[in-house]
């Protein structure tokens, strides 16, 4: 097996059709390189969790092929599990056990030698910042602490590939940022491949080297966040004059900077998509100044992953899940 060339995760035509249920995953292809953070972005019910369950060997695929760590998930499940760690949706912890007891159980289940079990558990608890709370029952932990312990438990056997299913859902921004830092460190320092599902645009944008956008069980876009956003087009600028009577002047000034579309009214201001990208913003400011137009508000709108989702599916990501027919609970229903 050539470690440097072989993908950490390679999926071809993967399908999951539930009995009397939806086709939750509908023929997806993807390839994740070793050490990469791959963001799997989509609304609720898009098929993210079903994909993760198949890749982690917990749900047999209906069709297609998926190789994880070089092993086919449908044939070499045990070998796949040796190389992966997973923190699935909702921190799966026992509220009556302490963090140290969780570590004890998890290390024993993975068959670590006795001497190593205690040391490994203590190291990981320290690493995720739970040393002070290690002997407290998990039932009293905050959401962020539970997620950090969940992550630590997924790492006890030193996996090469880590699956994180919506790891920051429901967390406050501080806990979310702390988890992002740990995931980045795992990838950059330890070379762990991370397959991360999320419905948060900013999470995919901040963490992922590459993003796959899934909707209705199909991957509708894939690439680096920058490339995906660039595909959508140039950023736009929006200017609101201090004097509302000067909107026409603003329109005239902005027109030459447009990429073909005419400036248009947005609320109290005028907006246009810039033909020269965000570097044109300084020229826009100078042009407005030359015309002696006082500006109350000037804003550059860079294309977001939501714009990408909108362009590919005709819907915005936020709220897209509400129109899905597939209930998330159906995803975990074994066929």
């Amino acid at each position: 097996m050539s470690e440097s060339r072989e993908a950490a995760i390679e999926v071809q035509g993967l399908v999951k059709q539930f009995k009397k249920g939806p086709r939750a995953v509908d023929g997806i292809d993807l390839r994740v390189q070793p050490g990469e953070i791959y963001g799997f972005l989509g609304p609720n019910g898009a098929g993210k969790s079903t994909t993760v369950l198949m890749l982690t060997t917990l749900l047999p695929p209906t069709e297609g092929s998926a190789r994880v760590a070089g092993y086919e998930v449908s044939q070499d499940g045990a070998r796949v599990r040796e190389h992966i760690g997973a923190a699935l949706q909702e921190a799966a912890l026992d509220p009556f056990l302490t963090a140290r007891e969780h570590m004890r159980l998890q290390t024993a289940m993975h068959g670590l030698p006795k001497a190593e079990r205690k040391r490994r558990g203590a190291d990981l608890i320290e690493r995720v910042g739970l040393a002070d709370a290690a002997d407290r029952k998990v039932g009293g932990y905050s959401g962020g602490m539970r997620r950090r312990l969940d992550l630590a438990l997924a790492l006890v056997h030193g996996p090469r590939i880590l699956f994180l299913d919506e790891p920051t859902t429901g967390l406050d921004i501080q806990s979310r940022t702390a988890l992002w830092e740990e995931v980045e460190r795992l990838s950059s320092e330890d070379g762990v491949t991370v397959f991360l599902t999320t419905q948060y645009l900013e999470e995919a944008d901040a963490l992922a080297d590459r993003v796959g956008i899934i909707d209705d069980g199909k991957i509708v876009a894939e690439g680096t966040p920058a490339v995906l956003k660039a595909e959508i087009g140039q950023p736009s600028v929006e200017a609101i004059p201090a004097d509302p009577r000067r909107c026409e002047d603003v329109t005239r000034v902005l027109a030459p900077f447009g990429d073909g579309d005419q400036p248009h009214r947005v609320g109290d201001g005028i907006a246009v998509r810039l033909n020269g990208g965000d570097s044109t913003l300084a020229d826009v400011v100078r042009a407005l100044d030359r015309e002696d137009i006082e500006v109350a508000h000037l804003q550059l709108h860079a294309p977001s992953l939501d714009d990408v989702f909108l362009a590919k599916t005709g819907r915005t990501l936020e709220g897209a899940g509400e129109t899905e027919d597939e209930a998330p609970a159906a995803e975990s229903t074994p066929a």
Partner: protein
Amino acid sequence: MSQATRIQIAELARRSIVRTLRQPAQVVPTIIFPLFLVAVNVGGLEAATELPGFPTDSYLSFAIAVPFVQAAIFAVNNGGADLARDIETGFFDRLALTPMSGGSLIVGQLAGVVALGVLQALIYLAVGLAFGASFAAGVGGAAVLVALALLIMFAFGCIGLFFAFRVGSSEAVQGLFPVLFVFLFLSSGSLPRNLIEQDWFRTVATYNPVSYLIEGIRSLFITGWDGEALGLAFGCAAAIAAVFMTLAVTSLRTRMART
């Protein structure tokens, strides 16, 4: 059995015991409620010992067998519901991602249930003796009593595991509790079968395996060494264990559909 499997079973059993002991609501009623019910029955039914053919002059000696089976019904409820909760919360999936075998999970979970069952059996025996129950089988009989209680606990634990794997819902497993209680009330728990006046009740009690579990335990208190009663009790418990262990293993395979 490999060293790794033994460690897995021991750790799963430890977790099962620790988790139960940290939930007083699971432990205290399990011990107190059956004893309370016996106290009520002894108070109200002591006169039953006057009936011709009643096997003892102490209703406590007669009724103290019931808590042993009642505790096993609690074991279905507690052990099964805990496992179902693991399935609901995803803890089960976490375990499924380790090299743990399905057998380790079942044995580990049952070992925890059985360990608590032994503790309960010793408490019931001690309380019974302290309040004047006779124990005809002597010291050796106490060991047989604990062994039988352990097997009954194991058998009923298998019922809990089967339903937990099958339905994966703690609420549904807890719904079994009243159903199993009906089996307890329609048994020879309150009166010897030959003294039950109603034909239908006597028939149901005769076909109800719970009657034989109770009668086996009761024989150690009242009769001493009754081979037939003990054989039927061990046989019924073993049969329940065999049937529901098979069903539990089959359901586990479906539930843990990892590749």
